[in-house]
């Protein structure tokens, strides 16, 4: 009997795992984990698209996707952290004397290793995603260069003005034809501003010393807002203007009405 008892009593790996999850604190933490992870996934999938403005370009879509999917990917990590914390919160000890000592766990090598490798993987996913996106935007910039409309954007304290050299007009509203790539050459007449056509999801600072560039292709007809995203003094808040993405016909008609020419 002494010979067999050790083998009979030692649990199998399967038994060990189910035994682990049957423990009260582990079971409760698992339920909390599911709850918190679900909450974060819902935050990413439901709320961000609700809050963010209408997607009118690939860059805007990319920004929205990152916010949604990075939330979903980090949901399990948030889930574990919050599950352990809320589980501990539910176990709280009140009173003027401390609770009895807990187990003397100094570290857990495998957990630390898994955690570190997990974070590394997560960071890599984020890095690769971001780099791929940056690269695809750079490639698009190269491809679209020849067919793009150029707009010279000037930020002054406290208004935006837009010059369309090819069309020979200068305006304070930003109107664009749908489906045509546009390159914004941005400069400041004075202090730092930041050119932000919100629905197009691009942004670039306006500096006095050098012209900066950003580009996009509007994919949908509709109104857009241009805001300033860098504090530039007294009326920074009022440095906003309207604009619209229009059909090519409407855009040409507008250009002519401003006194310009369509090439």
């Amino acid at each position: 009997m002494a010979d067999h008892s050790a083998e009979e009593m030692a649990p199998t790996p399967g038994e060990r795992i189910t035994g682990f999850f049957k423990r009260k604190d582990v079971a409760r933490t698992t339920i909390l984990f599911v709850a918190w992870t679900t909450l974060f996934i819902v935050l990413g999938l439901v709320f961000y698209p609700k809050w963010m403005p209408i997607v009118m370009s690939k860059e805007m879509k990319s920004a929205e996707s990152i916010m949604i999917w990075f939330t979903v990917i980090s949901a399990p990590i948030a889930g574990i952290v919050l599950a352990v914390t809320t589980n501990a919160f539910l176990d709280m000890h009140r009173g003027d004397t401390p609770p009895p000592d807990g187990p003397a766990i100094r570290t857990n090598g495998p957990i630390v290793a898994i955690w570190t490798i997990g974070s590394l993987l997560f960071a890599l996913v984020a890095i690769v995603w971001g780099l791929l996106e940056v690269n695809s935007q750079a490639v698009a910039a190269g491809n679209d260069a020849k067919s793009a409309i150029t707009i010279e954007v000037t930020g002054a304290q406290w208004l935006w003005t837009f010059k369309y050299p090819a069309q020979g007009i200068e305006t304070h509203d930003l109107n664009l034809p749908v489906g045509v790539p546009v390159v914004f050459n941005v400069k400041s007449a004075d202090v730092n501003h930041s050119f932000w056509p919100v629905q197009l999801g691009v942004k670039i600072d306006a500096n006095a010393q050098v012209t900066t560039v950003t580009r996009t292709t509007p994919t949908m007809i509709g109104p857009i807002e241009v805001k300033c995203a860098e504090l530039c003094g007294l009326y920074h808040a009022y440095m906003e203007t309207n604009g619209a993405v229009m059909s090519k016909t409407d855009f040409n008609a507008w250009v002519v009405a401003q006194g310009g020419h369509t090439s």
Partner: protein
Amino acid sequence: MSILDKPKVSSRSIPNPKKSLITRLHMGTGTVVGIIFAALTYYGLKSIYVTYTDKVADPMTTHNNNIILLGAMFAWSVGFLVGIGAFIGPWRWLIGKDLTDEEILYMAGDGQGKKRYFKYCTDHKVVGLQYLVGVMTLLGVGGMMAMMIRTNLARPGAHFVTPTVYNSLVGLHGITMIIAMIIVATGPFGNYIMPIMIGAYDMAFPRLNALSWWVLFTAIPVLCSAWFLGGIPTGWTAYAPLSIQAGPGMNAFLATIIIFAVSTAVAGMNVTTTVVAMRTKGMKWNRVPIFVIGSTISVALAIPAFPTFMAAMVMTSLDRTFNTGFFDANMGGSGWLYSNLFWIMGHPEVYVILIPGVAILMEMAPVFVRKPLFSYNAAILGFAGIAGLSILVWAHHMYMAGWSPALNGPFMVTTEMISIPTGLLFLVLIGTLWRGKPWMKLPMLSIMAFIWDFLIGGVTGIYLSDVPADSYLHGSMFVTAHFHFTLMGAALTGAIGGLAYWYPKMTGRMLNERAGYISFWLVQIGFNVIFFGMFMVGAEGQPRRVVDYAALYKNSNMVSTVGAYSVGIGMIILLWAVIHSWTKGVVAPMNPWGAKTLEWTVPYPVPLTNFDELPIITSDPYGYGKGK
């Protein structure tokens, strides 16, 4: 006499070195001499440099106005330090008549009672309490400005204040809170508690310790003077060239930072030397309490980082006074030079703020769960990894600046990598909580609040660190919400927990518990309400630092404002608790929490030299748990 020798304490006579100037100097004499120096400099410079008045229409004379104001502000600071006796020690050393032992003891505050808090006192415990009061003052002023900002944003239309006042509120709230958060953990607790925690009699450079506090003190009126000089049009980042265009109030901002940089440099040298050289026998590096390690890493990071901020401020001042053109495009300068210098400081600086806050929470976690700190080594690696990587990430604040689009990718890589050591910090905390029974006191609540706050801050930071998402989010209220979650969630929550934890050792009494809980919940719930509303409007497209906004953002802004009032009330209640409990609180036993670090082995009032005999350490302070 070396710093490691135990100073002689006269057990019978109170030191009163007659004929010594230092007995007659204090805050009052400092203020008087400071004002005299400032006035002399102001009128002296005014007679040399003609100012912009209706008699002289030359517009370049606005520069002279800046020279005069900056000169007067620095003169005030130097004058105050002269008047309070900061330079007596070095002066006497210079002329070969070094301070006597009695004078040194006098300067340590021996036998002077409450008066020593208003003098140039070298006792680290006095300096710690001075910092505590200073931090609370800055928090109060900064918090008041936050209430003003949120009141204005409650409705669209800028009905409460003008854009000039609002922009000043935003910029000055920012710099006041940044300064407060930099010193909130290492100031009061790094000074008061840390030397006792490592088993030392005092810090390595006691006179520099007093200097770091009083230099900071002189910066406070300078900062407040910005309001009387017309405010500032920039945010706390003071971007050039808007800062060059700014009115006289900008000089107050620049002078404050330059003065503050001296204070942090001095304090940084002191803390690092103390921890490296003065740990008591047996306290090997792997037995040092995590709070000490975190504080040291934090100030060691600050030492190389803050000088670039000071340099940027000096260059801005030179542009504004002697027309140097560092940041003026018309003279071949560039605003990007400023941005780079600023953010080379600015990013490490947020980790200077974060690390001590987390270190305090890690120090408290084992005490309140009665388990060892989970993976002490991971904690150290986490702090060190963050500190090291933080130097390589600065231009993620400049993704949209247009400075160097080719560098966006590399900076994105380094920035995402910081999530790895940061993740280790979370692991240490939740690993400590796991299978423990948390003792629900305010320090424990702070740990849990931090976990929630910094998790949200961290996840939202991941979006911002990715360039294609940042091209939407940069410059919006989303960024503001992100950094409030990280900075307030880590530094402020950690410091409040630390205050509740160490209050018995610093005042001899327990902090009023009920007030602490009420304050905690009002602040934490209010805080989350404010900044969730702000995440929403940021995602919806509201830019930051705007006095007015489109109707779309109306409701969320109103919700945020209500949350802000909750935080305000919660903080007032906390302030009441701190002040009230100081004299009327329940008297505390020597070790109310049953903790194992050295500060809980000394009685209150803590003796002048902390220990009669320096202790000898044989283990780390985390030996909790059954079956060690």
